[in-house]
Structure formats: C-alpha cells, structure tokens
C-alpha cells in the first residue's frame, strides 16, 4: 500500500470535468484507490463519491493505492491533481 499527498491545483477542484478525467485515469489502474480528504474517504473510480468530498482548489488530499500497480497509480493521480487544467 502506498499513500501520497497532493495539493489540488485545478481551479475547479474535483468538480465535474476534472473529476471525470481523474476517474478515467484511476480506472486505468488495477489497484484499489481511495482519495482521502480530512477524515472522509472516496473511491477514486467513482465520480459520484469523489464529488461528495467537495475537494476544492488548494485543498490537501491523500491518494492511497493498493495493488500491483500502486506506485504508478498514486504517482499518476498526484500528477493529475498537481497540474492546471487546460483552458
């Protein structure tokens, strides 16, 4: 299991479009992945759950991945949250 921290860079936070992208990326890994904000956890492969986290621009979240490709999954998702959305 790995845990990595990220600060959300996209202005829109983890809302509709960014969330959809994030979920798409998460689904491309076999590992179980959760996003943790404060004490709340959400399945990274469910945009509905993710949106209920209400994670906003500037919030600190932890990505926890467990499975065969856990390192790559956590790295990719942290990278995704750390980059600006294309305008």
């Amino acid at each position, binding site marked *: 299991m790995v845990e990595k921290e990220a600060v959300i860079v996209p202005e829109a936070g983890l*809302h*509709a*479009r960014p969330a*959809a992208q994030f*979920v798409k990326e998460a689904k491309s890994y076999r590992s179980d992945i959760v996003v943790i904000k404060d004490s709340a956890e959400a*399945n990274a*492969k*469910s*945009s*509905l*759950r993710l*949106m*209920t986290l*209400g994670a906003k621009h500037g919030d600190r979240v932890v990505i926890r991945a467990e499975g065969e490709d856990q390192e790559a999954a956590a790295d990719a998702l942290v990278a995704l949250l*750390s*980059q*600006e959305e*294309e*305008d």
Partner: protein
Amino acid sequence: MADYVKLEGVAASEGVAVGPALVHVPRELKPERESIFGDAIENELERFRDAVEAVVRELSETAERLRGDGSESEAGIFEAHAEIAEDPEFQTGVEERVRGLESPEVAVISVGEDFAGMFAAMEDEYMAARADDVRDVATQIATELMGGKKIGLETLAEPSVILALNLAPSDTARIPKGMALGFVISEGSRTSHVSIMARSFGIPAVVGVGAALEDALGAEVVAVDGTEGYAIADPDSDTISHFEEKERNAVAEAALLEEYKHVEARTADGRRIEVSANIGSAEEAEVALSWGAEGVGLFRTEFLFMKRTNLPSEEEQYEAYRKVAEAFGEKPVIIRTIDVGGDKDLPGVDQPQEENPFLGWRGIRMCLDVPELFKPQLRAILRAAPYGKLRVMFPMVVDAVELRAAKKILEECREELKKEGAEYGEIEVGVMVETPAAAVRAQDIAPEVSFFSIGTNDLVQYTLAADRGNERLMRLQSADHPAVLDLIGRTCEAAREAGIWVGVCGESAGEFGMIHKLIGLGVTELSMSAPSIPRAKKIVSEL
C-alpha cells in the same frame, strides 16, 4: 393595473416568445414491488444491469446526436449522465440493496436519492445542481426497469411555452425540434441544465420564478421575456402586441447579424477592417469559419503541449498547423509560438518554481533558451506553410534583441529544411505586443517585422500592474484606460512609420465599446472569440 399575473425570475436565455402554455408534470414513479424473493436475486441483478446498459446506450446516442448538431457542451451533459449510470459506487449501492431483497426499481431510486441528498447539502450552487443529475439518471433506470414508456414532452405537437417545476436534461432532449417556444421554470439558475440547453438552442427562458409558478398553472397563454427575466400569464392584448413587437425586433436583429457574418467589414470612410477569430485548437477552425472569421488572429498552440508527459513531435504539430492552414485556405492564420511559464507544467522542460510566473521565464524567453522546444515548432510551421497562408508571432517580446534571436533560429530551421530537401513555405513574422516595453519602443521593433498584434489582456495587466485574476481590481482590467490606450496609440504610430499593420487579439477586440477606439488609433485587424464576429462586423460597418 392590467389584469394578468407577472412572474419575475432569472433571465436565463435571451429572446421573447408568446404561446399556448403547457404545464409539464413529471410522472410520479410508483414501483409496484417493494421487495423480491431470495431466489430471484441473481435474476433481478441481471435485469438491473440490462436496464443500466439500455439507459447508457440511449444517453450515448443522444450525446452523439447533439455533438453532430454542434452542441458540444450539451453532449457533455449526457455523457456525464452515462457516467453516473455506470458509476461503480452507484451500482454497488443498488446491488447491495437488491441482495437485501429490495426490488431494483426501489433500490435505484433510494440510492439516487442518497447521492442527491449529499450533493444538495453541499454549499455550492454547482454541486447542488448535480443532485438533479443523479435523480434524473436514477429515474431513467427505474423507468426502464418498470418497462414504462416515457410520456409527455416527446409527443408535444403544438409549439408551446413550457411551464415546469424543473426540467431534467432528459426532458429537454425529448422535446421535438421547434415545439418549445420558451421555458418558465420554478427552480434553477443561469447555470442549471435547462438554462444551458435553452441558450444553446436559442429558446427564451426565465428560471427561478419560485412559487409564483403556481399562479400561472391555469394560464392558457404565456409570454416569456428571457432577456429581461420575466413571464406573464394570460397577457392582455396590449401586452401580447408589445411582446410580438419585441419578438419581431429580436428576430430582425438575429437576421441582421446573420447578414453580417459573411460581409467584409469596412468603415464609412472605406477603411477595411479584418475581423478574425482567436482559436485554441485545430478543431475550432471550422466553427470559426462558420461565424464568418476572415482569418485567425491568434492561434494559441499551448493545447499541443499540455496534459502529456513528453513534448509533442514536430510531425504532430505539423499535422495540427496544416489542418488549420488548409481549413482557412487563402485567409491568413497567425500562429503564436508557445507561451507557457511557471504557472503551467511543460513536459520535458525543467521549469524552476517561480514567485511570479507572469514576470518569469516564459514565452519567447523560454523558447530562446530551449531550442528543443522552439525548433520543432518553427519547423512544423514552415512545413505547414505551403498549405495555406501562415504567419508566425512571438509572445512576450520585450525588445528587438529577442526578436532578432528568434528570427535567427527561424532562419536556421529554414536552412535545415532546405538542406534536408523538405517541403516548406514562406511565413510572415510578427510580434505580439503585450509588454509595455515593446509598446513604448515599438519603433525599434517595427522595421524588423511584418505586423504587430496587440495582446491587450497582458498589456493591461502589465501596464496597470493589476493581476488579471484579481476580482478586487475590476476597474483595472480593461484596455479602456488612458495609459493602455496611449501604448496602443504608440504601437500604431510606430507601425505606420514602418509601413506595417496592427491587429488586436485580446478580449478588448470583441468589446463592442472598444472597437471604435481601437480603429481610431489605427488598428486594422480585430481578433476575438468566434461568436462575437458578426456583431463586431456590424459595429465596424456603422462607424
């Protein structure tokens, strides 16, 4: 006082309409079975999965159809709905309840309500609106499970003004073309789906009228003013004729703009003003042309470089530039070389963390230092040049020293291509005037370029020392400030002496109050977002 009911709400979609009222009452879903027997679990789960699949298929088809009609953002709504239907947590939630012997139709509605409740409770207008999305999807799956045919809006045969508590995207999508004259909606805001759909289809809409809607439910005729944000139930004849006049004016205005789409804009004293589009990807070329763009005044190339782990190849860039060059043919396309700084990640380039990315290592500064970034782009532009009329423009230039360095690299690229025997074409070179330094000393730069294009967004930000994103500095975010106008004037003056032309490619080119000032100062090309083009042409023609 006239004897009618006036409903005040939010002006959600421009235009006026008068027509027979149709009250849309959403059908109450009444599942026949609350529970199931233990031996039916697998069978019911199968039915649930089939229903999800059917709904997803239907949503995807609608999305595709809308995309085909050019309604990109509406297509996105239906795609998002398909995603909700396929959401693993949503499905697990339903499956758990079915295993607990709940009927799938009841389970779907309950799980939908659970999520909707969570969204509705969030203190964010956007998220609260997502509650309706989940409910809409859950309702569709439940309807499918109950084998029900949807009724109501899709059978509408008389053009009507539709009154409803709210309309889900699946509702609006079912209305046959031309049957919705207007919308009067109790709930919602400008960002609700119904508002977005209404704007996209050009249907007048007033939303958020609240409980007042009840007073209008018995009305036979309703008048909607989506520009002012009100509706009138059972209007008297004076009101009707007043609305009909407004309707005629609005239609005339739209027709007039349509007429201007494809004219060449010329001022009364005969000065030709080229009205072009700003685009941010190769796909936008066709849309820009359909709005009457006479060229591309600013082709931002950043899209090629973002969201990836390596730099785009020369070949990939060549394809994108060639596509736009071919689409525009004889019409000029100005490609701006990449302008990225520390505020955005560039793959394959080691960018230092900077305190002030907008005053940092970006644009031409970075390109001059990183030839492996700059050269493939220039080579790709040169190679695409034979397929149209391409121009290149360098961003963030401060003085002629930078310009010469950039031109030297461009020359190297040309030499290389020549040596390789590759096909390439000639391109005009220009500078994007967006630093006060370039504007103040425009006379140093002008003799060495074919054109200037003033990027007013950054020129304003740098001249007035006001961050573009800072809401408290609203007053300092317009080019309509004497300091900025002076710099634009100087730039035009230097250009005149050198015999080159000046364009404007910032927001202010499409600000209708600014157009006459820019032209007065000597600007002869205006580049803006495509939908603003017809109106800009009209304004120019009236000067």
